[in-house]
């Protein structure tokens, strides 16, 4: 049984149909990429999974449980964490408070402190700025914070919305290293990326979204050479 199962999902903004009849699966321990042009509905899909948006129809199952109508905070408690589009750091909170709030659902203080230290090691920039208000961080620094914060809850399923956005090349590499490592430790990841090549290299499978609908999907390593992907997303 897949960890995340989306069946026939449709999401609207008022009259706009952003996602239409989408079905996809993410198996336990898998890294899955979602690609598509601007406005294809990738963000919308992620927001439906993290329960920030209410679908008009379809079901979302997480670890066998129907979470379609669950409030977002409950979803986090089940083990879903998201690094959202637009970062959404808590601007008036310090870097450290943001990270600690990321671990809000966890009870083990010691474990949280250990993870905190680990994040500072991975992103030294955040360590230097732990007392700075998150709102005054540079764009890329905020992006690091958003990712680190999502990791702080030790989720079973990690949703990453364009994690490389705004990051310098060195850090982008670091992010993808982390993705690989986490996955090796058993974390399941659903990844939305514009940098399709990188993402596909880091993932097992890929879904391609167009105008709110799934056009095709497959094993990432095979799709990289697919004409359709090459042309539309890899600039080939």
């Amino acid at each position, binding site marked *: 049984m897949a960890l995340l199962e989306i069946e026939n999902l449709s999401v609207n903004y008022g009259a706009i149909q952003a996602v239409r009849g989408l079905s996809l699966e993410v198996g336990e321990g898998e890294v899955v990429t979602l690609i598509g042009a601007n406005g294809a509905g990738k963000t919308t899909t992620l927001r439906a999974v993290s329960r*920030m948006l209410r679908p008009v129809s379809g079901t979302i199952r997480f670890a066998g449980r129907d979470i379609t109508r669950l409030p977002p*905070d409950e979803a*986090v408690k089940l083990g879903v964490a998201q690094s959202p589009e637009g970062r*959404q750091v808590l601007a*008036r909170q310090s870097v450290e408070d943001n990270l600690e709030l990321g671990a809000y*659902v966890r009870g083990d203080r010691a474990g949280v402190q250990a993870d905190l230290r680990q994040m500072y090691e991975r992103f030294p920039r955040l360590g230097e700025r732990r007392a700075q208000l998150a709102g005054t961080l540079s764009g890329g620094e905020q992006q690091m914070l958003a990712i680190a914060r999502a990791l702080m*809850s030790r989720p079973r399923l990690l949703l990453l919305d364009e994690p490389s956005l705004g990051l310098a090349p060195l850090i982008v590499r670091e992010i993808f290293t982390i993705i690989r490592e986490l996955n090796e430790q058993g974390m399941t990841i659903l990844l939305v990326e514009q940098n399709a090549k990188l993402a596909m290299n880091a993932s097992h499978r890929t879904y391609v979204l167009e105008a709110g609908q799934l056009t095709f999907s497959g094993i990432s390593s095979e799709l990289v050479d697919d004409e359709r992907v090459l042309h539309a997303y890899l600039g080939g």
Partner: protein
Amino acid sequence: MEPSQLIQNLMNGLAIGSVYAIFALGYTLVFSILGIINFAQGAVFTLGAYFTYALVSGQFENNGLLKGINLFPAGSPFAGNPWAFGLATLIGAALAGLIAVLIERLAFRPMRARGAEPLLALVSSLGVALVIVNLIQLLVGAESYSFPANAYGEFRPALTFNVGDKVVVIRSVQLVIFAVSMVMLGILGYVIGRTKVGKALRAVAENPGTASLLGISVDRYVLITFFLSGFLGGLAGTLVSLAFGIGGPYFGQAFGLKGLAVIVLGGLGNIPGAVLGGLLIGLAEAFVPADYSAYKDAVAFALLFAVLLLRPQGLLGKAQIQKV
């Protein structure tokens, strides 16, 4: 100014200022969480006083639909000594807290769910205030009520001492008000400033969407906040009515506006700010020379205006950071 006068004004200012502060805290809590001004806070304040009164005296004798009903025909268990009275005060405040929760459920939550603009909450809460105030009048009349003199046992109404050859007077209730307010402020300051609950509250305050994305149950924290704010409002109501009697259903209105001035002066959503703002406005009013007492209100607001021009975010408010 003579030293006796100075001390007297200081005492007066601190006493009334601490009431402003505790009243304003209720406002500021709700504001910081939902970004809305809850105009019903003045009405909740009034309710708190009426609840305590009902417990202590058992009945509303004057007018209105509740006339003739006596809760405690055998005499109220809440009257006669300070502890019983204190208990009644707490229960009264808790009831006010529950009303605030109810208000949130009925008048604010559905609106949030529909994505209305936060300003509209002002109108909704104005409606709630109108309902409460006029219901009170229907139920118990427009008369003033005062706690029976024996409600909290026998106390000297005032302490006097000499400074030079002049007397300085402090009313006992002023002392009680000051002490209770400071204790409440301390507790609240601790909870919000130092605990996980406080941290989560601040997250909800800043961005409910993001907070829920981190696993924080926004609805629960909103409820807690409303309960706390109602509790503080109700407590302030009882404290004030202890000193001045319950001045009828409209009693809280004058405080409503002052409370707003206080939280804005101190910095919106800022707890130490509300305290500082309350004390400052209380003191400013107390130090208005007697001959100009007509301008007392204007002084409070002129102070507010002047401070805002110098510090647009209020005294302790943090300047809004805007990284572009």
